[in-house]
């Protein structure tokens, strides 16, 4: 589904990603871990097409075609969803209206008619139930005055209603207490199908107790320095990142 080869990217003169290779097939869950500043959030932003990052080399293919020249919304229309680490507040725009616009713009891009209001409402209600979201949530202004947990839950709610092919969860666990974390993880697991894929970006192993990854990658200094299965995550939790860093540095010498 997603094929990244030799991806190099940065901001202005600052190289952040220094050659990333990653392949994600449908049905898989990948976890990308790494210490702060290793380039995790940059990677997710570059996949989603954030324009302030300059791509200096490499390629990103989605379903067999390059998405390098596509705008963020075109990538979204293809089915790439990014759950933001810091979701943005938009005063006066309700959650429901935002989702409605999002769904209908994506349908428009595919040449479909807008979704009938009744159907849309049904879809939202269904997903609200799934994620244990209270009534009244839909009419609140998007992310305005939301607690950290509410913002993250709102991201997952959008993920549920938009049903993308590839979901990238950027530090979705940060700012969540254990109950909220369970609900969010539970939602993600329920949304899993053999047809979609998920990339979980996280600093801690905690979230991976609830979302079990098929593959774990360690990102350090702009490169994936180690890949493995979920056992690697446990090892990282137990031993920290230092041993990998040491290993990498020894290899360099």
């Amino acid at each position: 589904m997603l094929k990244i080869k030799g991806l190099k990217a940065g901001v202005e003169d600052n190289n952040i990603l220094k050659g990333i290779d990653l392949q994600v097939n449908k049905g898989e869950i990948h976890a990308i871990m790494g210490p702060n500043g290793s380039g995790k959030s940059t990677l997710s932003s570059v996949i989603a097409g954030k324009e302030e990052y300059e791509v200096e080399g490499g390629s990103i293919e989605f379903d067999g075609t390059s998405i390098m020249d596509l705008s963020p919304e075109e990538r979204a229309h293809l089915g790439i969803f990014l759950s933001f680490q810091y979701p943005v507040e938009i005063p006066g725009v309700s959650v429901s209206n935002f989702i409605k616009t999002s769904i209908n713009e994506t349908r428009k891009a595919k040449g479909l008619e807008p979704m009938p209001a009744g159907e849309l409402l049904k879809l939202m209600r269904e997903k609200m139930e799934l994620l244990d979201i209270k009534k009244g949530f839909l009419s609140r202004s998007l992310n305005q005055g939301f607690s950290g947990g509410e913002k993250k839950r709102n991201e997952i709610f959008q993920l549920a209603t938009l049903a993308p092919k590839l979901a990238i969860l950027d530090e979705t666990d940060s700012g969540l207490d254990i109950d909220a974390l369970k609900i969010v993880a539970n939602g993600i697991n329920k949304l899993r199908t053999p047809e979609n894929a998920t990339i979980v970006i996280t600093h801690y192993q905690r979230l991976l107790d609830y979302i079990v990854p098929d593959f774990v990658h360690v990102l350090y200094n702009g490169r994936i320095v180690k890949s493995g299965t979920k056992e690697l995550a446990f090892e990282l939790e137990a031993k920290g990142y230092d041993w990998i860093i040491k290993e990498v540095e020894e290899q360099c010498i």
Partner: protein
Amino acid sequence: MTEEDKILKEVTGAEYKYGFTTDIESDKIPKGLSEDVVRLISAKKNEPEWLLERRLKAFEVWKKMDEPDWANVSYKKPDYQDIIYYAAPKQKKKLESLDDLDPEMRKTFEKLGISLNEQKRLAGVAVDFVMDSVSVATSFKDKLLELGIIFCSISDAVIEYPDLVKKYLGSVVPTGDNFFSALNSAVFTDGSFCYIPKGVRCPMELSTYFRINEAGTGQFERTLLVADQGSYVSYLEGCTAPMRDENQLHAAVVELIALDDAEIKYSTVQNWYPGNEEGIGGVFNFVTKRGICHDRAKISWTQVETGSAVTWKYPSCILKGDDSVGEFYSVAVTNNLQQADTGTKMIHIGKNSKSTIISKGICAGKSEGSYRGLVKIMKSAENARNFSQCDSLLMGDKCGSHTFPYIEVKNKSAKVEHEATTSKIGEDQIFYCNQRGIGTEEAIALIVNGYCKDVLNQLPMEFAVEAQKLLAISLEGSVG
């Protein structure tokens, strides 16, 4: 052109939709202003002597006044001798019903999107239509009269209800209040009059549609609304004008009187021709609007200002009565070379009087938008409350946004809060929308809509639709 500019072009109607003229024979008098012209206007309207006297007095006062220059706008002052002060579409006879309308005029209505029949059927809105100087059609008159509600042109009211008009006309905006109101008092030609009797809740929205058609004319309409004790009325006003290269002057006066326990909701969607991209042409919109609230009365002004080359407008409330309430909700969009200096005055005199001001400015192109407001708490206004929020959204770096709030407090129990912010649409907001599949244009429209929501929510449904169309924004909240 950037994405933002494009959407702004749409939002502010760069292609002015209402720029047609109606080919109707009109009865107009020669250019210029003199005592004779004032007499002529009065004679044409068969006015009683007292009104002529008031007009002449106003003309004397006006001659001694200077055009104000304190507003943050610059324009070439009109030559007041080069304006036609009276122009009326020629009608063979007085209309018995709207079906007798001149076919050309009927077309005008349709182009403006106010098919009178349809309005009648669907929305139940009573419409008064003022073209150039005179009121040409008022619908639903009879039905309203059954409830004792008077809704007619002010010319008719002068003849038919002289006592009411004599009592209230000029009682809120005195003749010498300002340069433009004095001019209006001397030469006003028509406008709407409305009286809601005691305890009556007007069952439908009352609406006036103003249209400047004839070239070289000024429009000086006068609106007087009296809500008697315990009554309620919602009143809407819309304005358009043809595209012309010269500037046209619009100097209206609106007076609202809300007696004890009455409530008036007054909404305006102002879309006069704003001039072209180079700033040529467009309407000078110099309007005096003011209401007085008696005990427990409420006046709520809502305005969506997108048109006019220059706007000078401060709908105000004199909160004379105890427990009276004044509200002002405004969206003002300026683009290209438009200039808008608008805001409100809330004068608190009565005890426990409350006022709310929500002003949202959006500036694009090389335009200048100013909020100018006064909150005055007099010594007598025990326990007065005011909350003001004035926000500006800037699009592009060639426009200017200004905030001039005046707050004067002379009573210790007053609570006044004023907040203002100036910002632009955040790139992170746009990216967030993009990531959810919403294109940049649509994202800006969405964000602007959200930004204006507090004001748009105040508009009656019929007008909200029009206003949102004007902002090129789809209606929010149909789901959930």
